[in-house]
């Protein structure tokens, strides 16, 4: 075949269009829906201790999600986002990382944060925006963040964290930290310009970053196939940007773990960015402000309930005799009690002092901000009954 040397391209003499569906990327699955191992698959080297930690975290998140949706319905918190059905995607991937690796999430990866060691009290303090919240009560519930655990604070704007992950990983590479950055996002966020900018730049700069797309089928009400995209999901985009790409069953914690473990090796040892697309299903609504009955059927949900990642993993663990039904139930009851206790404690903790309002806009408050705060406090003193959460704690009224 003739060649164009400048572009290093083969030359053809007949017009040839490549079909948009020419690239069909398969899906890695290790655990079948019933928890048995796929023929020919090898289970990743996970010891009992790690397996049970992964299971524990999945259980904890399921309880937390269930309980906090109820708390929102009771009017105790303003908002919540459940990760029901997607626990394997975040926990399986976080489990394959080093604690020094940075995690940049979208907002549905509480499992990864819990796996890192964020305590039930820390979750509750954020959810109740109280004065013990690391974020100082400034963001809506589920916008967690923790520097000590290398978990970047969540922001509501979609996809902004993706190019930031590329930049963060660039710094890790230059500093030769031996760590990588893992960035989560949904298939809807992958339509944003920031996604494309991020993948292209990561491939060009060869930085140690893992892009983890949770393809959960819906962006609020918009179904992924046919309305969010027309092609074969998100994975082919990684190939187009020139990076290693893999698609996994996002409800199979072993497939997620194995792919992330290998991706981490590529990222850290060879500075190869990797795209992982985890196929899953958002069993919950988008948030507590959403009602999925308006856009999908109960039959569709039931079909996905059969693929439940926790039940699948539990079947495997029980077959291995690493877990018994009784132990799982006991663990569930313990975790539930801890969640309820932490909830009751956190809701009694006051909101941050009014002086916190102007902090952290800059490293130190400007003169303008100090003047504005003093004006505000003078106003609150005039109408203390209108601002009870802060008025009672001003001027020596502090507890």
């Amino acid at each position, binding site marked *: 075949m003739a060649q164009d040397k400048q572009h290093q391209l083969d030359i053809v003499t007949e017009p040839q269009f490549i079909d948009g569906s020419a690239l069909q990327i398969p899906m890695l699955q290790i655990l079948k829906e019933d928890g048995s191992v796929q023929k020919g698959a090898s289970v990743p080297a996970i010891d009992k201790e790690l397996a049970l930690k992964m299971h524990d975290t999945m259980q904890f998140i399921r309880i937390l999600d269930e309980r906090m949706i109820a708390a929102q319905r009771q009017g105790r918190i303003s908002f919540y986002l459940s990760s029901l059905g997607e626990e394997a995607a975040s926990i399986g991937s976080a489990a394959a990382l080093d604690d020094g690796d940075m995690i*940049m999430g979208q907002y549905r990866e509480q499992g990864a944060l819990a796996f890192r060691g964020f305590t039930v009290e820390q979750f509750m303090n954020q959810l109740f925006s109280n004065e013990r919240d690391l974020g100082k009560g400034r963001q809506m519930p589920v916008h967690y*963040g923790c520097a000590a655990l290398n978990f970047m*604070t969540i922001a509501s704007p979609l996809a*902004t964290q993706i190019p930031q992950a590329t930049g963060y990983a*660039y710094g*890790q590479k230059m500093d030769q930290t031996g760590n990588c950055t893992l960035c989560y996002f949904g298939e809807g966020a992958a339509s944003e310009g920031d996604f*494309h*900018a991020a993948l292209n730049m990561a491939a060009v700069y060869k930085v140690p970053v893992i892009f983890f797309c949770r393809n959960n089928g819906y962006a609020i009400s918009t179904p992924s196939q046919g309305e969010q995209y027309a092609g074969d999901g998100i994975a082919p985009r990684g190939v187009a940007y020139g990076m290693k790409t893999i698609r996994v069953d996002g409800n199979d914690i072993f497939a997620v773990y194995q792919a992330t473990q290998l991706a981490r090796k590529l990222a850290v040892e060879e500075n190869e960015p990797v795209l992982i697309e985890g196929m899953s299903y958002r069993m919950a609504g988008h948030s507590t402000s959403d009602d999925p009955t308006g856009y999908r059927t109960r039959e569709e949900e039931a079909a996905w309930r059969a693929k439940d990642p926790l039940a699948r993993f539990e079947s495997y663990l029980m077959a291995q005799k690493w877990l018994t039904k009784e132990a799982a139930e006991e663990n569930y009851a313990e975790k539930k009690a801890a969640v309820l206790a932490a909830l009751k404690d956190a809701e009694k903790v006051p909101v941050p002092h009014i002086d916190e309002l102007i902090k952290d806009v*800059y490293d130190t408050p400007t003169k303008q901000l100090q003047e504005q705060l003093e004006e505000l406090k003078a106003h609150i003193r005039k109408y203390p009954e209108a601002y009870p959460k802060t008025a009672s704690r001003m001027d020596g009224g502090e507890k």
Partner: protein
Amino acid sequence: MAKMNLLQAINSALDLAMAKSDKVYSFGEDTGAFGGVFRATSGLTEKYGRHRNFNTPLVEQGILGFANGLASQGSYAVAEIQFGDYIFPAFDQIVNESAKFRYRSGNEFNVGGLTIRTPYGGGIAGGHYHSQSPEAYFAHTPGLKIVMPRNPYMAKGLLLSAIFDPNPVLFMEPKRLYRASTGEVPEGEYTLELGKADVVREGKDLTIVAWGAQVEMAEKAADMAAEQGIDCEIIDLVSLLPWDYDTVAASVKKTGRLVVTQEAPLTNGFASEVAATIQDKCFLYLESPIARVCGLDTPYPLSHEKEYFVDHLKVYEAIKASMTY
């Protein structure tokens, strides 16, 4: 001291910053070995390597997203946006991310190491998309610092401060003056305080407030006024966020009159903020209404640039009107 133009002063600041800390990175479209379309980054790749000064793909939102991430990692990210007119794809990353990074995390994380360099302003036959002065959009965003130097000396000292300031800084460079403005500049490192206005010329009759390239128009107008016996005080605001209203208020309490001039369109510009604040702080001292001398509320024109341009004659007329009110 050496004679430098504004571009050379900026290049010198970048050079010194990169020498001072190997955590300083400079990047943008064409800013690598080529040195940028204005040559502000020339020589930096040769000196510090292509991992420290480099090209980015052509994607402003990606440049700022990358820069935010790099700064949050603890590096000093100096991102160039080739023209201020093209900063808007990055608006979300600047306004929703850079500006709120520290606040929203409760100080768990910050992007204090971020500096965004971008040329702004008209007078170069650039039409709509190479002439805008978009500072007011950003000046409405708590968490950012905004700096606009007027000459090479200020540019170098302010840029060195901006790069190492523990807050994200938008550094807007007056491109009309890139080569036109020259002056004596120390070759070594020095810094100038951010957020502090500079009294360029003292006077007793009337105060003129300007920033960036517009200070030159204020000076020319003040020269004309001086011939008529009007003694103008000129204040270069230097920083728009935070801005130094104490220096302006002290001046207006002395002179009783204020003319604010900006290149950008009149309505909702930063001059309006200056006027509102000063009437509040100096109401009983004012001898005449505060005047705003600004661009028209049109997109930046091409064939009518000369008419549109906020030149010294327009500022001079505002001075006279204020004096005879």
